[in-house]
């Protein structure tokens, strides 16, 4: 403890802030009775010079060696009083502060209680200060870089001030351009000078200043550290345009097919998905709004960009649409007919008028292309490569894989056992669904890409082997042998004549054979091939019944196919299954048993179980078994390729590699019977991995390009009001015609219908990645793959200038905002009046007419306890600005409905007078409501503003053409989040709190963080700019100081006690503790130590003390409290 403590205690009245609750004299008298207290005084303002002098003199006169001040919070004046002690020749750490304002007088009602609490806190401080020790000062260097958050007028001003002083500024703005609200204004009050004329040059100089690092479309994610040394992480959102390459020419926007409400114009106009908020934007570059993938695209197994080609179709750009399709799938014309169209099931339009005819649009695009362009591939081979790849099987999977490899430049040969390529599509899908010539064109495109198809060349026993293929120099092999082997029932009589398997049956019909099915045909099964077989048999003139062992609900066949079958007069018998066939040589009778559904099986469907004794027989001429297929794959087993139990080929699910190196597999051969589009998807995936394999030899760290998250339909429907538009009706061949032939059932959409239906697209993802912009961009600036990037910066101080947003008056239903089109918010009117706004500055109504009378309603959302109790400060003035502009531009009658006119400011009152003299009607009364219900003839067709003229006591009904709501200012979105990140405080209304309203108006409670502009509270442009300069000055003065004093409270390890267990070392967040092996103890590196005290609390032996927060100091403080 050193020499005998001599303590001086000083109680501050803080004007009356403390004195009105705390009996300061009583407290002073009490303090003087405390141990070692030599002198105790009270004074009005201890923080004033006089107060400080008092301390300094007492130190000298009474040889004080300890000082306690009871006043505000240490955040406020601890530094002040420490300095005072220093001046008095005392080590500043011989000082302790008791907060009796923030912690007593301001928060407690009862005077007596408050006084008692004050006494205790002072007692605690006295007890504590006794144990204080001298510490030497510590300084840290100030990093001279500054971060400014927010690129509005405040942020720009601050940034320029600092940059001009030669210091580096990072300016972070979350919008694509700087400029903030002021960039939206046309004129500014009271001088009516044009905002653009002030803003544009400022914005340009910010954009070009060598000391300003501009980070637009970026947000601060986290801030660590202290005054002088902050570490900041900034997320730079992907704008999908290279800022350095983009020249701002705008060609991209011209071709972008997606438009949406323009936020900058508050939805009064539309913008494209690729956009620039306004022509003078800085940086003058474009940005793409991309919210992920549209549901249609995510739903597609091949992730085919339906959104994209639907938009292009709408624009009539069918050739580009075809190219876009071919980027993800082959056989577009086929898919346009026979695809289950998972996309349409997910289409958001489904909920508002029925999904878009995505499949038929694809069909139209393909047919159009073949008719108008031919079958040349829509894109060129990237660059030719030497490697050869063999593909086994010319079905959808094989063709797809081959096509995309060929596109990459590989030499690809397909080996097909059948006479014609196309696999199942060619041989199992009936003509009436996919005509052969259509498939032929689809395949022609693939051939033209350079793919060679060898038909009638099986691989296997009666052909080449895998080894031979490798021997012939093929570097990789893709197996796409499909699933052609029909499952069997294994019941008696299954081998009788007249019993076909579905695939075999369809194959024979599709090969042109006239199959005799007789009159009564039974089809067994519920899958797509069952339905196909049934409909084909129907067309062969038979009376067809489908027998399925489950119910319609469980049928795997596509609902629409089943529908069509029923339409065509095909009968269905559910919950029945054959248990045997009779007849001599040829089948005549079929015995069936009824089933009922039991427990769900592995497939999740309820397993059917036979009902005892429910057997019955039916007469049949032929039976078609369509109970599923499996790959015909044993032979490949022999080639050393691992197979699964069900005969499918085993592959690595990620890379599609088989057990044999260089051999890949996909399609039905891997998945079992599936859809065309799934096969094609696997084909393309295989192509990707094969190509990578051939380039890299290994696929360990290779991954198929990942998909984007799917956009949430709800959000899409909330974006704007969506009215219900029914889908275009499709025409079908009349039933009687169909069943007599194999003509295509579904008829084409006309070009008009395509354009109409595609026009219903809701642009779920906003950007549809149609790549038109890429095509249009000379500068090659667009990069749809761009990702968010995290930028780490280090600064010494931070200026927050995040501004405000305007109040949304929709909840104030009585003013009819959004109900009556001629009711505008003030900020909307700013745009309406702006020369570069939606009407080029003409003040006109939605119907184009000039308003003859306009009402301006003040205090909308301000001075209202239900919304914002505060006055928004700028509304009166801008309202009068509007009044002037409206008069000037239209000569309309203008009515200002106000409660009180607030025009405190240089030349403001004068402006008020001017507007009065211009003949604007000032009506003192808050508007009760705006209605369109006329009571008098002159009110017809107008908006009637109802209010009491409080000066005459009359109730007025003023008919007007246009109403402007002068809406309140509120804290910007995300203010709360930012407050948390920065550790600064918000007041009850959400504005950031300054350290002191008078003495430190732009500082915050966190040292080194300053405020500028409306984020601290509503204010006009002059005040904002002034505050911005002030904040800049604060930051600069900090920089000029070069270093800043920091807490000297660091940890110290007593080597006598330390056992070197290193627990402290393990917990220290700043790795400020090292182990000294020579001594076997831990040592604190004081430069790194930030004095949190974690180590001290952790040390099991209590070998660590945190200076100024030592145990005995805390303990004695406790005793002081609890005595």
């Amino acid at each position, binding site marked *: 403890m050193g020499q005998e403590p001599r303590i001086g205690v000083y109680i501050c009245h803080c004007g009356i802030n403390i004195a009105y609750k705390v009996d300061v004299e009583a407290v002073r008298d009490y303090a003087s009775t405390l141990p070692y207290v030599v002198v105790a005084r009270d004074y009005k303002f201890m923080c004033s010079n006089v107060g400080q002098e008092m301390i300094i003199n007492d130190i000298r006169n009474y040889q004080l060696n300890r000082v306690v001040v009871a006043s505000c919070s240490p955040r406020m004046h601890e530094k002040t009083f420490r300095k005072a002690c220093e001046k008095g020749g005392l080590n500043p750490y011989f000082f302790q502060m008791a907060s009796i304002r923030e912690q007593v007088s301001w928060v407690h009602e009862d005077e007596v209680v408050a006084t008692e609490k004050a006494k205790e806190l002072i007692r605690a401080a006295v007890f504590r200060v006794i144990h204080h020790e001298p510490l030497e000062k510590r300084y840290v260097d100030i990093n001279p870089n500054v971060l400014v958050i927010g690129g509005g007028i405040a942020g720009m001003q601050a940034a320029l001030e600092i940059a001009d002083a030669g210091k580096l500024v990072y300016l972070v703005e979350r919008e694509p351009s700087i400029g903030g609200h002021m960039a939206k204004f046309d004129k500014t009050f009271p001088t009516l000078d044009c905002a653009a004329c002030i803003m544009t040059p400022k914005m340009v100089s910010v954009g070009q200043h060598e000391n300003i690092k501009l980070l637009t479309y970026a947000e601060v994610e986290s801030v660590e550290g202290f005054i002088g040394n902050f570490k900041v992480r900034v997320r730079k959102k992907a704008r999908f345009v290279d800022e350095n390459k983009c020249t701002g020419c705008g060609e991209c926007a011209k071709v972008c097919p997606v438009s949406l409400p323009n936020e900058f114009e508050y939805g009064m106009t539309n913008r494209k998905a690729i956009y620039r908020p306004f022509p003078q934007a800085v940086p003058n570059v474009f940005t793409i709004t991309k919210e992920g993938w549209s549901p249609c695209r995510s739903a597609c197994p091949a992730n085919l960009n339906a959104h994209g080609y639907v938009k292009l179709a709408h624009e009539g750009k069918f050739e580009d649409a075809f190219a876009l399709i071919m980027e993800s799938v082959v056989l577009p014309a086929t898919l346009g007919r026979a695809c289950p169209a998972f996309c349409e099931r997910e289409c958001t339009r489904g909920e508002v008028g029925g999904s878009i005819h995505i499949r038929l649009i694809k069909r139209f695009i393909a047919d159009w292309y073949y008719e108008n362009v031919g079958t040349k591939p829509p894109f060129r081979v990237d660059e030719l490569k030497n490697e050869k790849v063999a593909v086994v099987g010319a079905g959808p999977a094989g063709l797809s894989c081959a096509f995309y490899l060929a596109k990459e430049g590989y030499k690809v040969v397909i080996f097909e056992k059948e006479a014609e390529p196309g696999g199942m599509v060619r041989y199992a899908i009936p003509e009436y669904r996919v005509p052969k010539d259509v498939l032929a064109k689809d395949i022609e495109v693939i051939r033209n890409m350079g793919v060679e198809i060898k038909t009638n060349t099986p691989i296997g026993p009666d052909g080449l082997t895998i080894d031979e293929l490798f021997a012939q120099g093929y570097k990789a092999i893709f197996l796409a042998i499909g699933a052609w082997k029909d499952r069997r029932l294994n019941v008696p009589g299954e081998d009788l004549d007249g019993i076909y398997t579905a695939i075999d049956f369809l194959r024979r019909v599709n090969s042109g054979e006239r199959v005799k099915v007789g009159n009564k045909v039974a089809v067994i099964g519920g899958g797509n091939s069952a339905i196909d077989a049934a409909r084909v048999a129907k067309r062969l003139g038979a009376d067809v019944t489908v027998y399925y062992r489950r119910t319609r609900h469980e049928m795997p066949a596509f609902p629409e196919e089943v529908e069509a079958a029923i339409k065509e007069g095909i009968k269905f018998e559910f919950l029945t299954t054959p248990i045997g066939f009779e007849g001599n040589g040829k089948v005549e009778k079929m015995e069936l048993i009824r089933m009922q559904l039991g427990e769900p099986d592995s497939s999740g469907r309820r397993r059917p179980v036979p009902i005892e004794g429910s057997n019955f027989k039916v007469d049949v001429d032929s039976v078609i078994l369509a109970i599923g297929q499996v790959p015909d794959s044993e032979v490949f087993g022999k080639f050393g390729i691992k197979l699964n139990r069900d005969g499918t080929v085993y592959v690595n699910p990620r890379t599609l590699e088989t057990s044999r190196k260089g051999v890949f597999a996909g399609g039905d051969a891997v998945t079992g019977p599936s859809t065309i589009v799934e096969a094609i998807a696997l084909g393309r995936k295989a192509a990707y991995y094969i190509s990578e394999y051939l380039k890299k030899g290994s696929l360990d760290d290779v991954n198929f390009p990942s998909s984007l998250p799917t956009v949430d339909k709800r959000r899409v429907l909330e974006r704007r009001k969506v009215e219900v538009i029914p889908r275009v009706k499709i025409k079908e061949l009349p039933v009687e015609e169909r069943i007599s032939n194999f003509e295509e059932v579904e008829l084409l959409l006309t070009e008009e219908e395509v354009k109409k239906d595609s026009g219903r697209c809701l642009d779920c993802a906003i950007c549809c990645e149609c790549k038109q912009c890429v095509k249009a961009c000379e500068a090659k600036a667009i990069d749809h793959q761009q990702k968010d990037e995290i930028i780490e910066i280090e600064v010494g101080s931070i200026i927050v200038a995040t501004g405000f947003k305007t109040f949304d008056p929709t909840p104030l239903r*009585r003013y009819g905002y959004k109900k009556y089109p001629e009711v505008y918010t003030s900020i909307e009117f700013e745009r309406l009046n702006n020369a570069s706004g939606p009407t080029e500055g003409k003040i006109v109504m939605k119907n184009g007419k000039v308003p003859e009378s306009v009402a301006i309603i003040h*205090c909308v959302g301000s*001075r*209202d*306890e*239900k919304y914002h109790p505060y006055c928004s400060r700028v509304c009166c003035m801008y309202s009068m600005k509007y009044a002037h502009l409206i008069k000037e531009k239209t000569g309309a009658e203008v009515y200002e409905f106000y*409660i*009180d006119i607030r025009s405190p400011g240089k030349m403001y009152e004068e402006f008020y007078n001017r507007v009065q003299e211009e003949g604007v009607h000032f009506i*003192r*009364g*808050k*508007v*009760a*409501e705006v209605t369109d219900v006329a009571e008098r003839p002159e009110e017809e067709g107008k908006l009637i503003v*109802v*209010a*009491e*003229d*409080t000066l005459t*006591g009359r*109730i007025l009904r003023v008919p007007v053409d246009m109403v402007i709501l002068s809406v309140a200012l509120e804290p910007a979105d995300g203010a709360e989040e930012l407050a948390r990140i920065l550790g600064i405080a918000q007041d009850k209304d959400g504005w950031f709190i300054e350290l002191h309203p008078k003495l430190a108006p732009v500082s915050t409670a966190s040292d080194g963080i300053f405020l500028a502009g409306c984020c601290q509270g509503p204010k006009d442009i002059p005040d904002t700019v002034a505050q911005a300069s002030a904040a800049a000055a604060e930051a600069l003065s900090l920089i000029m100081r070069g270093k800043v004093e920091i807490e000297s409270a660091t940890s110290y390890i007593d080597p006598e006690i330390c056992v070197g267990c290193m627990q402290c070392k393990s917990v220290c967040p700043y790795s400020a503790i090292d182990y000294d092996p020579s001594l076997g103890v831990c040592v604190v590196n004081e430069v790194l130590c930030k004095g949190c005290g974690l180590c001290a609390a952790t040390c099991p032996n209590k070998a660590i003390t945190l200076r100024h927060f030592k145990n005995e100091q805390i303990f004695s403080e406790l005793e002081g409290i609890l005595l």
Partner: protein
Amino acid sequence: MEGKGLLKELVRLPGGREILKCIQCGTCSGSCPMVEVMDYSPRAFFALIKSGQIKEAVRANTYWVCASCYFCSVRCPRGIKITDIMYAFKELSVKKGFYPKKEPTTKLYESFKEVIEKYGRLSEAKLMQRFAFKKPLLVLSKARLGLKLLLKKRIKFRVKPIKNIEAFRRVIQRTKELESVP
């Protein structure tokens, strides 16, 4: 009755203190369906009180013609429960007996009270009969309507009191006793 004293009393009324928060914006008056038949609009009425012209205020019919649609209360930017204050005034004025004699509503409400205290329920017919004693002309003017309603079987002259009318009257009696004790 001394104005200042009354102001104190008003402020003590439930929600009464809120009167002092009024910023005279006139939203209440603009929203008031009955404002046209009021001597003073609700806003002006509050102005009288705030400026201490209490006597003038209580003589006004403002609070009596309040139809209690609560529009003002919903819309008041200061969150003043205006309608409730109007009720408080009515009650106070009855207690002190200074309500505007010419205001028919007061009579109507009295008749109303008499009827339900007698029968436990209201009957428009009985109400009108009683009201007739107090405001003969006004009621006479409604005769044609009465006839029309009668034809539509929408008037019942015979009212039977509620079952437990005795118990009900006891409750009323007890209430009155309770009221007499402050």
